[in-house]
């Protein structure tokens, strides 16, 4: 068994996921990550999988590989996600389905298969990514916010189902952060969101990792089923 802790982060090719991969490698984790496309960067003690989070057999193969190589999994961060900004009357079914498959079904599959590995050592820390679009009821983001609301509900219930196995499940909900995800959102829309926050600025990668660091500490074994929105949303 690998002596150091092992973390799996989804959606590591770019954006928040890439930053989290670097952050947890630095913090001494053997880090595994995935995205649909290959990565154009590399890190020591980082292994990439070209896996779509909504592909059941791909997710199973990835977790089989982690179990075979490391014999353990300590942390899962469900970061992979897609968004689409549109009025509901103009949203195609295919878009709605794609958002739910990636943002809700993906985390479900990842949690199910990861918990099977975590359970062996009766220890696990799972953190899901939500969004302030859910509590702020942002117009134009109905399917995106709803898919993340599904993850929020899963977080609360799976915290209970997985507690007997020493696994905690929590959610961090970031505010807008400059990544490709929000590149298409007009500046005044972003400003309108910031105006609704208690702390009126864009989010930073460090804001996200700071909250995740707290949830995944071994000492946080009594903190589960919690939803933490950043910026005072």
């Amino acid at each position, binding site marked *: 068994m690998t002596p150091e802790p092992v973390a799996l982060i989804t959606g590591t090719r770019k954006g928040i996921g890439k930053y989290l991969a670097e952050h947890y490698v630095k913090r001494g984790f053997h880090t595994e990550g995935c995205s649909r496309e290959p990565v154009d960067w590399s890190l020591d003690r980082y292994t990439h999988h070209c896996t779509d989070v909504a592909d059941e057999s791909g997710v*199973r*193969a990835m977790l*089989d590989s982690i179990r075979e190589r490391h014999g353990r999994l300590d942390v899962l961060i469900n970061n992979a996600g897609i968004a689409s900004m549109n009025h509901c009357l103009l949203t195609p079914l295919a878009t709605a389905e794609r958002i739910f498959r990636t943002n809700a079904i993906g985390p479900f599959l990842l949690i*199910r298969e990861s918990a*099977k590995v975590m359970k*062996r050592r009766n220890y696990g820390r799972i953190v899901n990514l939500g969004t302030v679009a859910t509590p702020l009821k942002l117009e134009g983001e109905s399917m995106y916010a709803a898919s993340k609301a599904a993850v929020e509900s899963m977080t609360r219930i799976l915290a209970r189902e997985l507690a*007997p196995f020493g696994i905690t499940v929590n959610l961090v909900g970031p505010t807008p952060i400059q990544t490709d995800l929000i590149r298409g959102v007009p500046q005044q829309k972003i400003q309108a969101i910031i105006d609704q926050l208690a702390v009126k600025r864009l989010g930073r990668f460090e804001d996200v990792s700071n909250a995740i660091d707290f949830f995944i500490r071994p000492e946080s074994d009594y903190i589960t089923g919690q939803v933490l929105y950043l910026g005072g949303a």
Partner: protein
Amino acid sequence: MHANAVPDAERVLELVIQSTRAVLEQRGATLPDTIGRDTALFGQNGLLDSIGIVTLMVDIEQNVFDRFHASIQLADDRAMSQRSSPFRSVGALTDFILSLLNGGA
């Protein structure tokens, strides 16, 4: 699934019994004198509670992978139904695993 050769019923039964014993021991439950095809796994006279069943299923998936190099998935909507659950008894579970190893459910 990617099995080399499908293991015979005896070896699968043995794996189910060993895995059941391991879960009972792990959970500090009293072991019955014998465990065989007719042993009920859950329900009124069953050996395991719901967490025990979940633990057993996950352990069996991993033991099948380690021993037979086959990746099966035991998740089933009928899991908690007493009458038709493929997990109701050691025999039913053995047959269910064999059917999955043979490529169907």
